[in-house]
């Protein structure tokens, strides 16, 4: 079966600095896939290259059978993908409702119904739709950002560290929402630093080291993997998963 997203040997970086080196991953429909790895491994850069926020220098990005590598972020939205950046992911001077309307800018009909449907999942947001987004807490902003990205009913949602800097309670709520999003039929590809909680809800996971593929396993297998545990789940302090080939470690 053809995967929903098939990333084949993608390389990307910023200017002359290459951070991701020939990475291949795939995401099936209705699946949560998490990418973990040390700081500077190129996780967020990979996500941005997949979505078109930066242009890949090599490789192919196949979304629903179509090569979308090099398309702009704007075109990726049209192709059926949504993206939630780690920071600055809401329009601060717009209200909650206006933020959601902007997520549906390309949608002609059913906007209000879709807004109501999404707000139903987040009572905190639904209670004050006319509050400006700049006044929301970090967790509420993240929830709003995910709702915004879901307004056009994408088949694939890319999340860049959705629980970064959130309280444990808020993290739990966001992860529960990610599961709900998957259950509603949307595939999720996320980069996450809170590796244990992310892998607990993931169907599969990838480890990226030095901008290269280091490991691919199911979420459960990764949680049971002593090497992953040692490196990313805080069980032991030292050790390393080696990448297939040496590569420059990026800073972003």
């Amino acid at each position, binding site marked *: 079966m053809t995967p929903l997203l098939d990333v084949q040997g993608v390389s990307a970086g910023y200017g002359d600095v290459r951070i991701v080196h020939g990475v291949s991953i795939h995401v099936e429909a209705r699946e949560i896939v998490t990418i973990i790895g040390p700081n500077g491994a190129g996780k967020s850069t990979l996500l941005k290259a997949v979505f078109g926020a930066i242009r890949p220098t090599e490789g192919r990005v196949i979304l629903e059978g179509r090569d979308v590598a090099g398309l702009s972020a*704007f075109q990726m939205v049209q192709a059926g993908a949504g993206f939630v*950046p780690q920071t600055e992911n809401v329009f601060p*001077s717009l209200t909650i409702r206006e933020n959601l309307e*902007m*997520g549906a*800018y*390309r949608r002609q009909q059913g906007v209000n119904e879709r807004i109501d449907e999404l707000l139903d999942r987040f009572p905190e947001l639904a209670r004050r739709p006319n509050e400006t987004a700049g006044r929301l807490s970090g967790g509420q902003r993240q929830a709003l950002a995910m709702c915004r990205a879901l307004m056009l009913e994408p088949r694939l949602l890319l999340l860049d560290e959705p629980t970064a800097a959130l309280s444990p309670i808020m993290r739990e709520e966001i992860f529960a929402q990610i599961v709900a999003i998957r259950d509603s039929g949307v595939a999720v590809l996320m980069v996450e630093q809170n590796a244990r909680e992310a892998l607990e809800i993931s169907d599969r996971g990838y480890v990226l080291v030095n901008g290269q593929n280091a490991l691919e396993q199911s979420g459960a297998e990764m949680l049971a993997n002593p090497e992953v545990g040692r490196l990313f789940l805080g069980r032991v302090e030292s050790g390393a998963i080696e990448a297939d080939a040496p590569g420059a470690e990026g800073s972003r």
Partner: protein
Amino acid sequence: MTEFAQLLVVGVVVGSIVGLGAMGLTLAFGILKFANFAHGDMMTLGMFLAYAVYTRLDGTAMGPFSVGLAMVPAMLIAMAGVGLVAASVDQTVYRRLRRRGSASITMAIASLGVAIMVRAVIQLIWGPTPVRYATGINVAWTLPFGLRMRPDQVLIVIAMFALAVGLYLLLFKTRLGKAMRATSDNPALADISGIDTERIRAATWMIAGALIAVAGVMFGVQSQLKFDAGFEFLLPMFAAVILGGVGNPWGALAGGMVVGISQEVSTLWIPTGYKTAVPFVLLTVMLIVRPRGLFGPKG
């Protein structure tokens, strides 16, 4: 007291013209992220485009006003014309710079070049000799408390309020306006939300161009049309934008009023020749005491 009130009235009229222009300037700054030095010369273009149309139509004055109904189509054509020129300049000049990732200062310097070019073209077409829309006498109305206001001036203030309300409705009640505010907040996020930010920029140029064209026509209705008239308005407009808080159209309008009123009222105490310096004294004080302006965002 009457003299003070009379100067206040004149200040409101001048402030309306400055405010109208400053609203467009600050709107463009919020979305395009650079100071557009060509804005003043676009104002001149607006006043001369309206002049070109008005003088070809029946220019009979209407009622107490110095201009006739023909000014309505003339102004509409000037609004569309300046909007189109501004959007075209964006496509041919600023868009190329944007794609190269040029800094704001590069864009601002490029706009200075555009300003000089537009001014030269205006001088080439309409010449250096000042002209007027109409030569008739505009008899002032007597208002309560012995105040006097020319019908043309009333028209200017009404136009300013009408356009301010129109701009508010556009920005807060329409999809386009909300997308403009979103693009002003975060252009990259607007892109990944599926908003065509290039179209939004084009629309912003059109709207800013239309607003400055009206400011130009309003100035021309009560004054002479000169090829450098708009350029002389550029600094007061920038002062209004900074006083009101950069990127805030209502702040720019309020800033325009502060500029207009302060320079007119100041003539009670200082020679008229120095009045144009007064808004800049206020501007300097504002930058020291409250750099974000009257209504600018914190931080």
